[in-house]
């Protein structure tokens, strides 16, 4: 029952992509996640950018996987229906000397195999991005760059994997790994356990701890925090492309990002922290974001802020991905150090890890009946009034608005709950309910009631995210 060929530790974008890749083969695969839902770690809180392959040198594995991953997104989007748009990336030069750096990036990108790169004059830059600061000198344009809703991508990957036989176990916080015969026995904090012939370590920020549990390679993941502001879709500062400044040594700099859903993200900062759970935000960092964003888009305004958040990059010292069959213990494959451009590279990482598993001795036979496609779920904010009306004749709840800011219907919320997203945060990332300008002020009680009605739980049993995150403590 709990005996698998392969166990993947961590259901972020890396684990999800590996799971989906492996679901093509005749293997019993389990995906283990310590949180109550998938994609709640680094994969949730990042820039949501599909990079275009010019930022790093080809000597890095991450660069090659970034270029390979980028081109895989069009097909994935067709199959999995997640929000993705190739809106293009502009790296903007605000000083003459920046242009030299942009030519270096341009050459680097060409060598990496990035397609369509263009060095732009001031005029061309303004044509491509009218909201840019008038002091702009020029830019590097990468039309293959794009934007994505990262959590929706992970949800879709996991759903597709599950549809093709992968088992998902949430709230499975790995505590112990034990070699018994030819297998690994993995035990969670709550006493559940599974066994598997091969294990993929895709534990993100905790990949070093997981490796240690196996008695495998010693390395250490250093969390590097990135803080962001989310701006209302009504903002005048929404650019049509992702805007990068000229990068610095430690990060790609602070960006202005038009999200796929019409809001605007500004950030991230880059700050090394000690605590892997520290996703708090701070005043001084957040002030820096505005300053930096305004240098590129002057109309960025504090009045448009909906919320702020931060995420942690699971960085390794050498800055590269660590994708390798363990040389210390049998049957373990590491997929660690997946920081930027990990989201872009994820589809290619899936393939790469599959090959590593083969190298480790795992036999893979393609399934006869792999179904790559997911059923499209209606989202009423994308539909005309007439289409919503005809949907409502089948299920009237498609015309019942629960979240007014993001226009999410009760039918969408119920569908998400049935698919296992039964916490406030899980629902928020799956449907966008509560993600808009009122931040749940108006819809939280409606969502509570819908969860209670759909799952049969009581109000005090509804959670925001983790086990102790009750919303309601007592009922009158």
């Amino acid at each position, binding site marked *: 029952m709990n005996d698998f060929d392969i166990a993947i530790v961590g259901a972020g974008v890396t684990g999800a992509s590996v799971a989906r890749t492996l679901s093509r083969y005749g293997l019993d695969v389990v995906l283990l996640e310590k949180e109550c839902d998938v994609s709640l770690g680094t994969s949730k809180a990042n820039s949501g950018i599909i990079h275009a392959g010019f930022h790093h040198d080809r000597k890095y594995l991450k660069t090659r996987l970034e270029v390979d991953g980028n081109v895989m997104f069009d097909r994935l989007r067709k199959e999995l229906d997640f929000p993705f748009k190739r809106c293009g990336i502009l790296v903007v030069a605000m000083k003459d000397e920046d242009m030299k750096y942009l030519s270096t990036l341009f050459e680097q990108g060409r060598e990496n195999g990035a397609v369509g790169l263009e060095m732009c004059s001031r005029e061309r830059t303004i044509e491509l991005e009218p909201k840019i600061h008038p002091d702009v000198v020029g830019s590097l344009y990468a039309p293959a760059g794009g934007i994505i809703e990262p959590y929706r991508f992970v949800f879709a990957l996991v759903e597709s994997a599950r549809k093709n036989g992968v088992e998902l176990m949430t709230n499975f916080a790995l505590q112990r790994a034990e070699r018994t015969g030819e297998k690994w026995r993995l035990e969670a904090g709550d006493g559940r356990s599974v066994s598997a012939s091969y294990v993929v370590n895709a534990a993100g920020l905790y990949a070093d701890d997981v490796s240690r549990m196996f008695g495998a390679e010693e390395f250490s993941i250093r969390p590097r925090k990135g803080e962001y502001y*989310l701006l209302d879709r*009504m903002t005048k500062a929404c650019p049509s492309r992702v805007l990068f400044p000229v990068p610095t040594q430690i990060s790609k700099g602070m960006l202005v990002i038009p999200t796929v859903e019409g809001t605007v993200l500004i950030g991230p900062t880059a700050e090394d922290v000690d605590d892997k*759970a520290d*996703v*708090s*935000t*701070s*005043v001084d960092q*957040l002030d820096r974001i505005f300053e930096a964003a305004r240098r590129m888009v002057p109309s960025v305004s*504090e009045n448009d*802020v*909906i*919320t*702020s*958040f931060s995420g942690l990059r699971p960085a390794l010292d050498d800055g590269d991905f660590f994708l390798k069959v363990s040389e210390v213990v049998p049957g373990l494959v590491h997929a660690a150090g997946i920081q930027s451009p990990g989201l872009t590279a994820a589809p290619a990482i899936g393939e790469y890890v599959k090959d590593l598993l083969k190298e480790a001795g795992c036999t893979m036979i393609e399934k006869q009946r792999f179904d790559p496609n997911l059923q499209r779920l209606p989202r*009423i904010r994308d539909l005309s*009034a*007439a289409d*919503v*009306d005809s949907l*409502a*004749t089948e299920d*009237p*709840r498609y*015309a*019942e*608005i629960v979240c*007014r*800011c993001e*226009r999410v*219907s*009760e039918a969408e919320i119920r569908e998400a709950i049935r698919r296992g997203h039964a916490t*406030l945060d899980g629902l928020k990332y799956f449907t966008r309910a509560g993600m808009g*300008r*009122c*931040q*749940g*002020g*108006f819809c*939280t*009680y409606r969502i*509570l*009631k819908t969860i209670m009605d759909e799952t049969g739980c009581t*109000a005090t049993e509804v*959670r*925001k*995210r*983790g*086990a*102790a*995150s*009750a*919303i*309601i*403590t*007592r*009922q*009158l």
Partner: protein
Amino acid sequence: MREMRFDVLVVGGGAAGMAAACEVRDAGYTVVIVERENVLGGILLQCIHNGFGLTEFREELTGPEYAERFIDATTTGIEVLTDSTVVEIENANGEKTAYCYSGKTGVTVVRARAVVLAMGCRERNRGNVRIPGTRPAGVLTAGLAQRLVNIDGLIPGRDVVIVGSGDIGLIMARRMTWAGCTVHAVIEIQPYPSGLTRNIVQCLNDFKIPLYLSHIVSRIDGHDRVTRVDVTPVESGSPNYDKTFAISCDTVLLSVGLVPENELSKEAGVEIDPTTNGPIVDARLMTSVDGIFAAGNVLHVHDLVDYVSEEARRAGAYVVKYLRQEYPARQLRVKPGANVRYVRPGKCDPSTENRFYMRPLVVKNDATVVVRLDSTEVKRIKRPHIQPSEMITFRVNEGDLRESAIRDDSVLEVGIE
């Protein structure tokens, strides 16, 4: 899609929407109210405390009682679509078209000659005031907490800290105490409270709840659920982090201001005033879009529902005049003078009585509101005490303005001395 046609569409069935609709109905025009919830009444229904109606009904009512008087008045001659959300208003060739989504009836297309925007306001949230820290469960707006406690009987915590001394926060300090919770503090960034004085006395002092003026919550902590907040004094305009202290709690209620809900208005092409976040309106409470009017908290945030009802009734009356094609001959610009944050409406019709609402920028005893027409004083109104959290209302009528002194480009300036 179901189609319906009325003279007037009212968006929102709270205090403003009901008052405006009654006025239109009384003049013999057809009118529909589209309301998102399953009953009329709006936010009044969750305000179970008293203090409503002193001006409107000359008696002290609870929110639901106040609402009920208006709900009773709407039972005949007004079409009410409940459980219906207006998602878009189009304006073409003088006709307004609204798309209303409902889980009961699908999509209804409502066409009307005029529209009254009466969507009210929403609460500012943590993101708007940028409180750093973690994002655990237990951080919610005071209004959401009020809804959960008073309507659904759900208590969202045990140990509470309230950020902001707005009226909803003060009312909730008392309400949470009654519900068996401990309210450890109310934290206010300004050196003076932002709610009504009577609420400070009745909701905090009577329960010995400490009010920290000139303090901010500088951080929220907790992984799954809130465990504590950091509180920092504000000294000469900026936080002194050396004096930060912590308060243990599991709940943070935010009462940090209200914002008119104008996304629908903006999409309909209505121009918004950056000071109030409400539509720019003329003396008739008509927005920049011909035939679209606004009243109540969607226009500017009021202190008292009585004022909302009064303003909305006036909007209804102006809609009737609009339908009868009775337009004002001329309108004068009204501008805020010394010590005034804003005056609404921003236009004055010199041929009739005008009612204004204004917010002062200062706290002052023995203040005088001075109205000037092109720098000639035309009216003085004495007030024993004014403060930014308390709205001032006054009238200017045709008798106050000498016809001979009025030019087409005359300006009415309202200041405080």
